[in-house]
């Protein structure tokens, strides 16, 4: 038995000794009371995980019927213009199966989203963000890069409805003698216990940065290290979450401009160690 095994066994022992056997009764009571007035999320289209109630033959026949129907509808629409108005007919505005999709939120919809530009006087950067979001500029320089929602050393741009569940956060700090690549790596390694998602090199604002876990970007320019974080919490609807995915974040990052020369570094407060 090696030291690893001993430590792992020790952790398990501590957990089993410490774990409460029962939750206080009121925890369940309160939850059930809240649930009384909580509607369930509606699932408008449930994609079946499998077809538990359909045998294979029935499923195949049903799918074939849908395909035949779709081909028929498309075929009719292709034939209709030439039959009704001959050569040179103007495109018809009549509805057809291929031109009446139901509205569905998608990352593409964010492309047409109205954007505003935020300029950070503290951190020396500017970036576009969805118009209507709330600006919460940093009031202190980032001596340590913390990321609590509303912490004073980070610029926040957030959705007024979701607040701490949908925001962009950004800040910069001096490299303090570190090489740019080392700062970026150290930052990503220390962020929130270490950003463990996939890391991809991307060029943003003329710098070579790293995008980690699809939502955290770090780079360095001049003598400063920068990060931008897109956060989506679990309170978002799946549609909102999809509309603020990596594609959206990259489109926001594409607007990032870095001005390290205009960043402000205020002295650390006496309370800071």
């Amino acid at each position, binding site marked *: 038995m090696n030291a690893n095994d001993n430590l792992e066994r020790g952790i398990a022992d501590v957990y089993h000794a410490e*774990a409460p056997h029962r939750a206080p009764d009121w925890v369940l009571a309160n939850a*059930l009371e809240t649930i009384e007035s909580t509607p369930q999320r509606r699932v408008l289209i449930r994609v079946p995980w499998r077809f538990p109630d359909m045998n294979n033959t029935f499923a195949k026949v049903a799918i074939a019927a849908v395909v035949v129907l779709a081909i028929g509808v498309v075929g009719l629409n292709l034939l209709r213009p030439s039959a009704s108005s001959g050569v040179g007919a103007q495109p018809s505005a009549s509805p057809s199966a291929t031109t009446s999709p139901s509205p569905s939120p998608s990352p593409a919809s964010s492309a047409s989203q109205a954007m505003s530009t935020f300029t950070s006087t503290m951190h020396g950067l500017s970036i576009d963000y969805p118009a209507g979001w709330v600006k919460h500029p940093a009031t202190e320089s980032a001596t340590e890069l913390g990321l609590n929602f509303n912490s004073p050393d980070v610029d926040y741009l957030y959705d007024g409805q979701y607040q701490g569940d949908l925001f962009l956060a950004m800040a910069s700090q001096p490299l303090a003698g570190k090489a740019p690549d080392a700062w970026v790596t150290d930052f990503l390694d220390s962020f929130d216990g*270490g950003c463990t998602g996939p890391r991809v090199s991307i060029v943003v604002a003329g710098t070579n940065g790293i995008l980690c876990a699809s939502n955290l970007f770090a780079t360095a320019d001049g003598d400063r290290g920068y990060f931008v974080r897109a956060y989506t919490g679990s309170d978002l609807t799946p549609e909102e979450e999809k509309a603020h995915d990596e594609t959206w974040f990259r489109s926001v990052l594409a607007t990032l401009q870095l001005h390290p020369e205009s960043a402000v570094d205020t002295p650390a407060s006496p309370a800071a160690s």
Partner: protein
Amino acid sequence: MQAELVDRARRGDREAFSVLAAGAVDRLYAIARLALRDTELAEDATQEALVRAWRDLPTLRDVERFDAWLYRLIVRSCADIGRHRRKWRAEVSIVRDDASEPDGAAGLADRDLIERGLRRLTVPQQTILVLTYYLGLSPSETADALEIPVGTAKSRLHYAIEALRAALAADERGTVGDTREERMA
């Protein structure tokens, strides 16, 4: 039996959900208590996970995966609550607790040391340790609960153990230092 309850609850049957919640609440609370190391926050996280479970149950596609899905929800609630309350810089800059008096029993002393070390980890680090060493989940089950790839889960577990090891070493150095100072006095 459970699958039937889940299916009923998924279709809006509150009574069925009450039965499911009563069966899961102690387990969820224990996970939250160990991951957050705070009684009040654990109570909040457990309630939040149960309410989310009710609200989002219609989105659960496979009723057989209800338990795994609940783990995801409690992990998310712990992460959200941990995120709002913590200063993540605390991960590195550790304030040493006052070392408790040794009780003479080596096992208890070790446990006390580990317990203090665990307190110094971040919520994500605590969470992966709880899933692995308290619930005994496999790497793939842990990855599923955390909604991350298996490789990432393995690496996160590795770093959590390393962080604990570093905290233990720092604690031990602190204790030795204190002893020396006491001897000098």
